[in-house]
C-alpha cells in the first residue's frame, strides 16, 4: 500500500501534470473495467457499427472481384499517371500505421507512461492499416497470385528481383514492418489474454484465449521474459518508425520526375506519417472512449498530448511544403519551377489549396489549449488531417506525373468509380478488423494500465 511519506510528492506531481488515470482506480477496478468490454454482452451500437463496416467490406469484395475479372483497366490509371489511387492509398494507409509504432516503441523506450492506455489500440490500428496498405500494390499487379515474383526465393527463372528498384525495398520494408508490428502486438497481448482466459464465462472462449495466452501464468520468470522480449521488440520496431516511410518515400525520390526527385522526401514523409497516424488515432479514440465509457483511462491529458504531437509533426510537414516551394525558386531549374507553378495554378490547383487548408490552416488551431482540450475541436482537426494527408499524396502523385518533361506525354487523371470503391472498401476492411478487435480483445492494455496506477508507482519507490 501507499507509503504516507510519499504522499506529498505524488500530490505535487499531480498538480504539475494532470493524472493519466482517473481518480479512485485500483488494479482490480482497472481490470474489471477493461475486461468487461470484452466479457460482457455485445452492445447494440456494435452491431450497427460492425454491420456498416462489413457492408463497406462487401464493397471491397465486389470491387476486387470486378478488378480480377476485368483487370486494372477499370481504374483510372493511364499512361502519364500509371500509379494513381493505388499508390496514393498505399502511402496513406502505411503512413497511418506509423503512429502505432511510434506510440508502442519509441514512447515505451522513452518511458512515456501516458502511452500505456493508447498503445494497444494504436498498434492494432498499425496492423490493420498495413493490411489495407498491402492490398494496393497486390491489386495493382493485376495478377496478385504472382506476388512471389517480388520475393528473393528460389525459382525456375534463376532470377532475383530487381534489387536496384525501390519497389523491392518497399517489399522488404513493409513485410518487416508488418511482421514486427504483429509480433510486438501479440507479445504485448499475452498477459491480457491470460486475464481474459481466467475471466471468460464459457469454456470455449476460455480455451481460445488460453491457447493464445500460450500458458501464461504470471510467474516472475514469465514477467521477466516478457519484459526482455518487449524491450527487444521495441528496439527492433524503433528504427522501423523511420525506415519504413523513408523507403516508401524512395519510391518517389529515386525517380526523376520533378516534384518527386527531392532529398527532403524521407524526413518529410516520416513526419507526415506520424502526423496522419496521430490524426487517425484521435479520430478512432474519441468515439470509442465515449462509447465504452473509458474516459478514466484515456483522459483529457492523452487527447491533449496527441494534439501536441499532431501539431509538431504537422509543422514539419508544412516546412516540407515550404521547402518544396523554396527549392523550386532557388534551384533555378525550369522543370522544377514549372512543376510548382502547375501544382498551384494548373488543373489540379483545387487539390493543392485543399491540402494547404487541411494540413496547414486547420492544424494551426491546435496552438490553442482550448481546442486541444475540446473533444469536438480535436476530432474536427483530425478529420481535416485525415483528408489532408490523402490529398498530399494525391498532389504528389498526380500533379507531378501528369505533366512531366515532355508535353507530348501530358495527360489528365481522374479516379473512376472503381478506384473510389476500392478505396472505400479498404476503409471497410480497416473498420471491420477494428470492430472485431474491440469486441474480442482488450482495446487497452490491462496490465500496463495497472502499472501506471499511483499505488503501483509508490510500491516501486518504496521498494
Amino acid at each position, binding site marked *: 500500500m501507499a507509503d504516507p511519506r510519499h504522499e506529498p510528492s505524488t500530490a505535487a506531481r499531480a498538480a504539475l501534470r494532470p493524472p493519466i488515470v482517473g481518480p479512485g482506480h485500483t488494479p482490480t477496478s482497472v481490470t474489471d473495467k477493461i475486461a468487461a468490454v470484452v466479457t460482457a454482452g455485445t452492445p447494440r451500437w456494435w452491431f450497427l457499427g460492425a454491420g456498416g463496416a462489413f457492408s463497406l467490406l462487401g464493397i471491397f469484395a465486389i470491387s476486387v472481384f470486378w478488378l480480377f475479372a476485368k483487370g486494372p483497366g477499370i481504374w483510372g490509371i493511364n499512361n502519364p499517371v500509371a500509379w494513381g489511387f493505388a499508390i496514393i492509398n498505399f502511402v496513406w494507409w502505411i503512413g497511418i500505421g506509423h503512429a502505432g509504432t511510434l506510440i508502442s516503441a519509441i514512447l515505451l523506450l522513452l518511458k512515456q507512461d501516458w502511452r500505456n492506455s493508447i498503445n494497444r489500440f494504436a498498434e492494432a490500428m498499425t496492423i490493420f492499416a498495413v493490411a489495407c496498405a498491402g492490398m494496393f500494390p497486390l491489386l495493382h499487379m493485376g495478377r496478385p497470385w504472382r506476388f512471389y515474383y517480388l520475393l528473393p526465393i*528460389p*525459382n*525456375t*527463372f*534463376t*532470377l532475383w528481383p530487381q534489387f536496384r528498384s525501390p519497389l523491392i525495398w518497399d517489399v522488404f520494408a513493409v513485410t518487416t514492418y508488418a511482421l514486427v508490428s504483429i509480433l510486438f502486438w501479440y507479445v504485448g497481448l499475452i498477459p491480457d489474454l491470460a486475464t481474459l*482466459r481466467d475471466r471468460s464465462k464459457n*469454456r470455449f472462449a*476460455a*480455451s481460445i484465449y*488460453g491457447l493464445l495466452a*500460450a*500458458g501464461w501464468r504470471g510467474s516472475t520468470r514469465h514477467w521477466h521474459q516478457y519484459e526482455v522480449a518487449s524491450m527487444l521488440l521495441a528496439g527492433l520496431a524503433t528504427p522501423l518508425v523511420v525506415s519504413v516511410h523513408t523507403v516508401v518515400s524512395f519510391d518517389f525520390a529515386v525517380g526523376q520526375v520533378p516534384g518527386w526527385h527531392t532529398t527532403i522526401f524521407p524526413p518529410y514523409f516520416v513526419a507526415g506519417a506520424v502526423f496522419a497516424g496521430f490524426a487517425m488515432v484521435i479520430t478512432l479514440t474519441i468515439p470509442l472512449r465515449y462509447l465504452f465509457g473509458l474516459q478514466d483511462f484515456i483522459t483529457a491529458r492523452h487527447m491533449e498530448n496527441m494534439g501536441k504531437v499532431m501539431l509538431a509533426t504537422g509543422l514539419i510537414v508544412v516546412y516540407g511544403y515550404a521547402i518544396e516551394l523554396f527549392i523550386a525558386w532557388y534551384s533555378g531549374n525550369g522543370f522544377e519551377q514549372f512543376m510548382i507553378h502547375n501544382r498551384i495554378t494548373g488543373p489540379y490547383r483545387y487539390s493543392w489549396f485543399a491540402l494547404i487548408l487541411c494540413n496547414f490552416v486547420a492544424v494551426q488551431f491546435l496552438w490553442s489549449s482550448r481546442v486541444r482540450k475540446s473533444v469536438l475541436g480535436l476530432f474536427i482537426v483530425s478529420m481535416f488531417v485525415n483528408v489532408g494527408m490523402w490529398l498530399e499524396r494525391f498532389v504528389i502523385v498526380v500533379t507531378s506525373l501528369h505533366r512531366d518533361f515532355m508535353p507530348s506525354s501530358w495527360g489528365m487523371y481522374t479516379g473512376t468509380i472503381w478506384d473510389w470503391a476500392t478505396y472505400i472498401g479498404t476503409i471497410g476492411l480497416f473498420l471491420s478488423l477494428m470492430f472485431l478487435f474491440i469486441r474480442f480483445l482488450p482495446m487497452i492494455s490491462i496490465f500496463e494500465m495497472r502499472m501506471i496506477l499511483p499505488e503501483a508507482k509508490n510500491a516501486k519507490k518504496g521498494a
Partner: protein
Amino acid sequence: MAQLFHRSANAVARFTIFGGVFLLAGLGYVGWIFAHSSFMTGENVYLKQPVPFSHDHHTAGLGIDCRYCHTSVEESNFAGIPPVATCMNCHNIMWKREDMLAPIREAYAGGDAIQWSRVNDMPDYVYFDHSIHVRKGMGCEVCHGRVDRQPLIRQATSMQMAWCLDCHRDPGKYIRPREEVFTMGYRPTEDSRSMAERLLKEYDVNPGTDCGVCHR
C-alpha cells in the same frame, strides 16, 4: 476451476511450433520438385502424332540432313514443318501402300496439311529465333537432344527460363563451330574452353539477358 488444458498440451504446443518449421520446409521442397517435374515442364514427354514419324530412322538410319525438312531454320525464327509434299518426294515410290502412311497420302491428295502435335512449344510471350542461334554456333542437339536416337520426338529439355538463361549467361558452355551445328553427338576436337573463347569472339556472340531480348 478445473484445468483448461491437459498436461499434454505443452508437448502438443512444442511439437506444433517445431513441426511447423519442418512442415513449411517440406512444403517448399514439394513445391520445388513439382515446379521442376515433367508434369509442369513437359520435359521428356512424347506426344501422340498422326503418323509415327521416326527421326531416328530418317536421320541416323538414312542420313537425311535436318535442313531437308526444316528448310527455314537458317533464315527464319521458325525452323519449318515440312509440307506433305516433302514426304511424298520419297514416299510416292517407296512404302507407297503402307497403312501407316495413309494420312500422308490422303493429305497430299486433298491438298491438306498434317496436324502434327507440337512438341517444343514456347509460350507466346517468348520471342525465339532459330536462325540467330544457328548462325552463332548453337547445335540443334543443344536444345533438341540426340534427335538421331529418338524414334518419336520428345521435348528434350525443361524449356524453363532458368534453362534459357543458363546458356545466355555463358554461351561458351554450348558453342560449337558453325560446320558442326547439324552434327549429332558432337565432340570438340580441341580444348573446349579455348575454342569457346575463340568462337565467341569470331561469331560476335553476346546474347544478353535483358528482359527485352526474349520478351519483346
